[in-house]
């Protein structure tokens, strides 16, 4: 363990009382930040101070704080979850910053993500897309034999890579067009790769696409920023598979969304 060090930083953070408020940036000096603390712990530390001073604490979403739940998320210095590779904001540590740094913190911005308060955004549009088709229907009855359906190792691996998506919305946040294609394609790709997902593949891709467009996300124009901002490094090859599934469903499928 390296020696404990403290730094002083300036936080330029987005403050917004509620969805209808216009919102504004507030500049707050934070002194004595332990470099061993995580970014969210730094915010906790600041919030305790704000509460003691009888001020409104900065609201932010968080849950597991170990990078697997997908609840946390904010844009730090222009990049969702900060500049670290393959990590969520809860895994970002203050040792990444220098004494005297000004750190700009903003909520994920998209028409489909309404700001609820400060750094908290409403990501229920992602849930709506999943509800439109991101599932497999399973009949009731006796439990099927777990090994009855053979799945090739490489397919299982690729499906798992897609399933690694934690639905945090960083792909939408970083996309210049606020497109949700990486998120949606991860689910379509995961289920398209597995035999259990094939029966509903055609209706799934069209229904999820329709819902995605309805939610007000932008159009993907292949900037590839999403796969670089993704904490789970979901690849745009899943977007390519989405496009193939779309072509299949549109050209030979019988399903109309």
């Amino acid at each position, binding site marked *: 363990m390296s020696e404990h060090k403290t730094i002083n930083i300036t936080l*330029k953070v987005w403050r917004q009382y509620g969805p209808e408020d216009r*919102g504004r*940036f507030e500049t707050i000096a934070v002194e004595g930040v332990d470099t061993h603390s995580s970014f969210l712990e730094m915010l906790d530390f600041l919030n305790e101070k704000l509460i003691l001073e009888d001020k409104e604490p900065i609201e932010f979403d968080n849950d597991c704080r170990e990078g697997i739940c997908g609840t946390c998320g904010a*844009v730090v*210095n*222009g*990049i*969702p979850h900060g*500049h670290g590779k393959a990590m969520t904001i809860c895994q970002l540590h203050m040792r990444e910053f220098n004494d005297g740094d000004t750190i*700009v913190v*903003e909520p994920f*911005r*998209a*028409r*489909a993500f309404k700001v609820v308060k400060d750094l908290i955004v409403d990501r229920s549009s992602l849930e709506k897309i999943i509800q439109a088709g991101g599932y497999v229907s399973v009949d009731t009855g006796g439990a099927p034999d777990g090994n009855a359906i053979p799945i090739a190792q490489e397919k299982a691996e690729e499906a798992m890579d897609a399933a690694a998506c934690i639905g945090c919305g960083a792909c939408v946040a*970083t996309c*210049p*067009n*606020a*497109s949700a*294609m990486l998120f949606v394609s991860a689910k379509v790709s995961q289920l398209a790769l597995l035999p259990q997902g094939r029966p509903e593949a055609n209706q799934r891709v*069209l229904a999820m*696409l*329709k819902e*995605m*467009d309805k939610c*007000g*996300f*932008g*159009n*993907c*124009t*292949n*900037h*590839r*920023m*999403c*796969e*670089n*901002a993704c904490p789970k490094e979901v690849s*745009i*090859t899943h*977007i*390519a*598979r*989405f*496009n*193939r*599934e*779309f*072509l299949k469903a*549109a050209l030979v499928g019988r399903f*109309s*969304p």
Partner: protein
Amino acid sequence: MNWYMFVLGSSVGKKMLMAVTGLCLVGFLAVHLLGNFMAFAGADAFNAYAAKLHSLQPYLTIFNIGLATLGLVHIVIGTILFFENLKARPTKYDVYKNPGGRTIGSNTMPYTAVLILAFIILHLLKFTFVDKSATPIFELMSTTFANPLWVLMYVVAMVIVAVHISHGFWSLFQTFGVNHPRYMPLIMNLGLIVTFAFGIGFASLPVYLYLIQ
């Protein structure tokens, strides 16, 4: 009708339209470039090539209408995508950085598009919709490119076209779903070759015509 509206009007459908028309336009540019190389064979060869091309009626007219339609679809859908994407993020970021992936080409697509459109209009007014009964096309070109300002303008325009294609080429394969770790690097490299071949190939003619005078 509902099916057509949904499939072609969806975000991915519009992408597909951009990719199909984009690929056709790249194909046209390849043919145009090959035609340009005839000019290096001299005035007579190039004028004969132009005369032969114009004698191919009615196929030439059909080809031109097809090409104009492709261009129009590319422009109209591109414009719709631009404004929809602008609308998808009403509040801009105060600080916005590239986590990786974004290129000069992808970053400037709509802007290079506008500049290319302006260039095409100028190019058509200069060499297509003019009376060529008195001066044959080769002579028209050599008098135009005797002026270094015209040469410079064409070279700059070709750099802009190359920047547009540097993103467009690999991007259209991704849109068709053609992306695999085995051959995506090949497509990327091919895109780079096409970018430089078109940029240098098209820019070489005005420069050559300027230098031989």
